[in-house]
């Protein structure tokens, strides 16, 4: 329906200035990702994958160039608007799950809805339960994260990332802390979500992920090489 891509980066550079001078993590990156894609970002360690994802999530700002996600010029958003936008437009899945330790699984899933007031208060818990159901961890809903296995925690984290029905799901090495069988099931889960229409951008080191990908982006020394 919509001919324009969901995500579009044009001439994006990101450099960090540190003790050892200026370091360029991304150099003149231009790329597009269409709606409904399962984009997998690969590359060697230090090639700039996390930096790229950070720019898409509005966690960091580019030094140069434009970042458009769902028609929003992310690089131009002021700080306050950035948070609100991030809460609604993107869902983030971390390598270390990052569930809040003092909230139960279902409360963790409700938290983004709470911050963004995305759903009426009464609908939040049923919706969170539905998401946990969809990810196969509904039976873990009232447990604290520390009592869940890694795979279960990551499923809860994905449910949380989906809480506000984001346009895109961003995942930075979501299986980095999981064994290969569990990793496989997470990839399958992403694939299922993509089938249901969810756009996913995932950074990974695992070769096996490539067969689920509908688009692959390879980075080397901060440049897109394939």
């Amino acid at each position, binding site marked *: 329906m919509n001919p324009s891509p969901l995500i579009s980066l044009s001439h994006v550079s990101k450099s960090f200035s540190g003790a050892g001078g200026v370091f360029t993590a991304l150099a003149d990156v231009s790329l597009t990702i269409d709606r409904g894609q399962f984009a997998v970002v690969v590359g060697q360690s230090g090639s700039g994958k996390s930096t790229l994802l950070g720019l898409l999530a509005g966690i*960091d700002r580019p030094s140069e160039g434009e970042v458009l996600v769902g028609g929003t010029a992310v690089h131009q958003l002021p700080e306050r608007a950035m948070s609100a936008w*991030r809460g609604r437009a993107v869902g983030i899945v*971390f390598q270390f799950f990052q569930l809040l330790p*003092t909230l139960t699984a279902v409360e963790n899933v409700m938290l983004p809805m709470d*911050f963004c007031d995305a759903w009426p*208060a009464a609908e939040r818990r049923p919706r969170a339960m539905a998401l946990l159901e969809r990810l196969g961890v509904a039976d873990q809903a009232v447990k604290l994260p520390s009592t869940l296995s890694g795979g279960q925690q990551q499923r809860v984290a994905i449910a949380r990332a989906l809480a506000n029905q984001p346009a895109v799901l961003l995942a930075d090495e979501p299986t980095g802390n999981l064994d290969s069988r569990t990793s496989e099931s997470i990839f399958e889960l992403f694939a299922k979500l993509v089938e249901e229409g969810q756009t996913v951008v995932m950074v990974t080191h695992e070769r096996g992920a490539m067969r689920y990908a509908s688009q692959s982006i390879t980075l080397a020394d901060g440049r897109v090489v394939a």
Partner: protein
Amino acid sequence: MDGSLLRPRWRKVLRDLWLHKARTFLVVLAIAIGIAGAGSVLDTWALLRRVTRDEFSGTNPASATIRTDAIDSALLAAVRAHPAVGEVAARRTVVGAVQARGSWRTAMLFATNDLSAVTIGKVQTEAGTWPPADGAIAIEKSSVDFAGVALGQSVTLQIGEAEPRALEVVGIARDAGLAPGWMEHIVYAFVTPATLAMLGAPSDLNQLQFTVRDRSLEWEAVRRIAYEVKALVERTGRRVADVDVPEPGAHIHAGQINSLLLAKGAFGLLALLLSGFLVVNLISAMLTGQVREIGVMKALGARSGQLAAMYLALALLLGFVACLVALPVAALVGRAYAGFIAEILNFDTTGFSIPTWAFALQVAVGLLLPVAAASIPVIRGCRIPVSEALRDFGIAGQDHESDTGWLSRLGGVTRPLLLSLRNAFRKRQRMALTLITLAMGGAVYLGSLNLRTSIQRSVSYLFGDILRYDISIRLTRPMAPDSIERAIQGVAGVGAVEGWSSTRTAVSHADSTLGNAFPLVGQPAGSKLVAFPLVEGRWLTEGSRRDIVVSDRMLKEEPQLRLGSAVTLIVSGRPTIWTIVGVARTGVQPGAYTTRAALAEALGNGSVALVTVRAADRDPSSHGALSRRIRGELEAKGVEIASSQLMEESRSVLEDHLLTVAQTLTVMSQLMILVGGLGLASTMSLAVLERTREIGVMRAIGARHGAIHTMVQAEGLVIALASWLVALPLSVPMSVLVGKAFGRVMLPVPTHIVPGGGGVLQWLLVVVGVSVVASAWPAIRATRVPVARALSYE
């Protein structure tokens, strides 16, 4: 903690508090200590203000008292007709001697025609019956213990040379307008004029008291009215002996109380400030542990404002809980302290409540303090960019760490100690807050020790160097000085003896008004038994006629007077002209001194009623026996003694009283050190928390429990010793401040500003003890850091 009605973010706040119970408890404790410290002073002040206002003004105190003779209803009516005069009353005060349980005390008897209808200086019945019938007596409550009498007992009273009479104590009454009898060493009592007559004292009323219609008038205006009334009295052909106009609305000790509480209030505020520091530290610690979670929540779409609101609400909640604890404590302490002061003031606080506004103020501060203290770390913490929060661990970040390279350049420092030193200086701001908190407490502690020393020394000075006599004897009938001195000198063990004469006098102003009455004392020219320190001028000499030395307080009351000025004093009703040849520090009461000869001439009578005796044996324990020997000797000679006083007793009473005040300051400083200790504990646990990984690495490379324990303890000690050091110079201005405040309130003490060796050592022991206790738990926590977890800690 269910809270299914709460939003998840609030549930998080509550569960985080619950999870870190120890820290939550510390924060609540810190706020509670601050609020309780400042609040108790506020409560004391508010309560006393209410009591003094209500109760003292409730007694309808006299605006002025005029001493004249034979006051009758016609005179009262004439004075009442004066347009500025409100109420009028007449009474008589008679000074005599009262004997209870064997010893004689000075008694002051108040008599008026109808004791049941006293309108000015109203008296409250405490026990027994009121008014006393003819031939009975009612004692003022504050004199009861001092006199050693009880309701229903009989006391012997003697006025002048009259036959002593036994009177039954039928009532105990309270006159809130009197300074306490136990403090003044006077037994106040109430009798009817008929009883006075029975005792052989003149019974006509000689004190005319009145109130001014307009209670808001200034001192000067009241004084003017008093002199108009005086003129009115004189027109009836009566002589006026003196006119006494007390400061309107002020109780005798009200000024002292205000400045006393002012000093306490300052320390209360300091305690509050310090607990504020502690809250800053603890909330920073809380947020440090939460940086990653803050990053995650931001990544989930939380705005900085939402996060800040969460943490500030948390601070508000802590403040609320602290208030629940602190308010009752403050009220309890405040009430007790107010009771203590009220006793000094001769008030009663029962039936009065602490005003609501005082509680409201404490709640407001209790809620706002943690929010204000938290706001800086919260804002800083919530502003951290998401990327940084997710990457980094620690609010203060690397860029806030100080350069500690200079430490390695210090010679002779061993490696582990160097590490502790360097760690202690790593977070400069946090360390500064902790250090200041402890050092302030230490400075006040040293200041209070200095004050103690000052008090002890100045009391010794007062009773050793200034007042050089050991026993004072008041005679019922004044006698010629030579004969009484000869009589006492003959008693074994007497070193020196001097008879002093005395009269009450007042300054006669150019506008023919009189100042307030004060004693004029006549002493032998080269008195060996008293040596007041001179402020300026010289002391009295043998040949001085009509020379006086006045107290420095006197110059405050009569500002037109100065060294060398001629002053007209009314002595025995006649104006006499004197020259001020010296100004001396004689204490808090105004007074003047002249030679016995000069006073004898002015009075037309050279007899003395007060005899001072210095014992040959300087050991105070022998003075009681000497006093008994002198009394025996005098009684044998038929000389009647109204009262006698051992200076050693006066000395210990005064010293105890003053030390009580110093004691409250010590308690205040201990409170501050406690707050400092809590601060140190929080700083140390924060340091351990932040260095989990580092400690894990150290353990991985073979550091044993003992080594890690020592490292944490040593770091605490570094801060403690630094505060010990900082407190030393800080105690100097603190001592000056404390000494000044005390001097204004109690009696001017020579301030010892340099901390004494003993105090410095004590403070060292205290601060080391505090450090060891404060670092104990963090040190244990550090040794419990598992190697694996420390290394995997992201």
